[in-house]
């Protein structure tokens, strides 16, 4: 099981702040993870078109869509950051 967190408008669109997910072995990269979420149900389908917009963190480190995320205990999906 991996703990998955959603922030800002991603959180609002998926309708929850976090959940625990058992990812299938076929999910190897951050891009696979987004594709898998988008296919899972209607609330997540928007991720298909937002795949190049949203950011993914694995164990609180930013990752690219092609990065391997297997073994991460915590994943997060969120919009581009607007801090500072």
């Amino acid at each position: 099981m991996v703990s998955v967190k959603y922030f800002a408008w991603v959180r609002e669109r998926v309708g929850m702040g976090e959940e625990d997910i058992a990812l299938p072995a076929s999910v190897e990269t951050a891009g696979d993870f987004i594709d898998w979420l988008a296919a899972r149900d209607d609330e997540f389908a928007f991720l298909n078109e937002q795949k190049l917009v949203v950011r993914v963190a694995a164990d609180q480190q930013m990752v690219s869509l092609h990065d391997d995320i297997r073994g991460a205990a915590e994943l997060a999906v969120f919009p581009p950051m607007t801090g500072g």
Partner: protein
Amino acid sequence: MACAITVSVVGERIDPARVFDAFDTSSADDDGAIAQFCGRCRGESGRLTALEIEHYPGMAEAQISSAASNAASRWPISRITVIHRHGKVHPGETIVMVLAASRHREAALEAVQYVMDYLKTDAPFWKREWLTDGTQGPWVEAKASDDKAHKRWEQP
């Protein structure tokens, strides 16, 4: 050169004069330069009543610390302090402060600029507007100019 790094992410109102005073009075005799930046919530000419800042606890602190460490390895600064607010922030209130001390001005000023540019694009905070009519406004969109400001620090 050892650099003392202090990072905090807070939900309470920041008192910027107090933060500066604490930094200034604890400076060493050879800190000839103190540079500081305060980012404040703008009222946007009366359009906004607040900005609500969401953050990713843990990762926010880690990303800011990483920015501060990078600055400390890049410039000869003796101390750097970063404090970032989350929650609902009203016009005129402080969102972020970055302070750096060094022997000379260039290092302190550039370190502050670097950390600010990094925070804008890489620290997991998201701002949403609250409008004067009492309704929740849109999420603030990331700016291409911030990406550009960040990129100028990338080394070849």
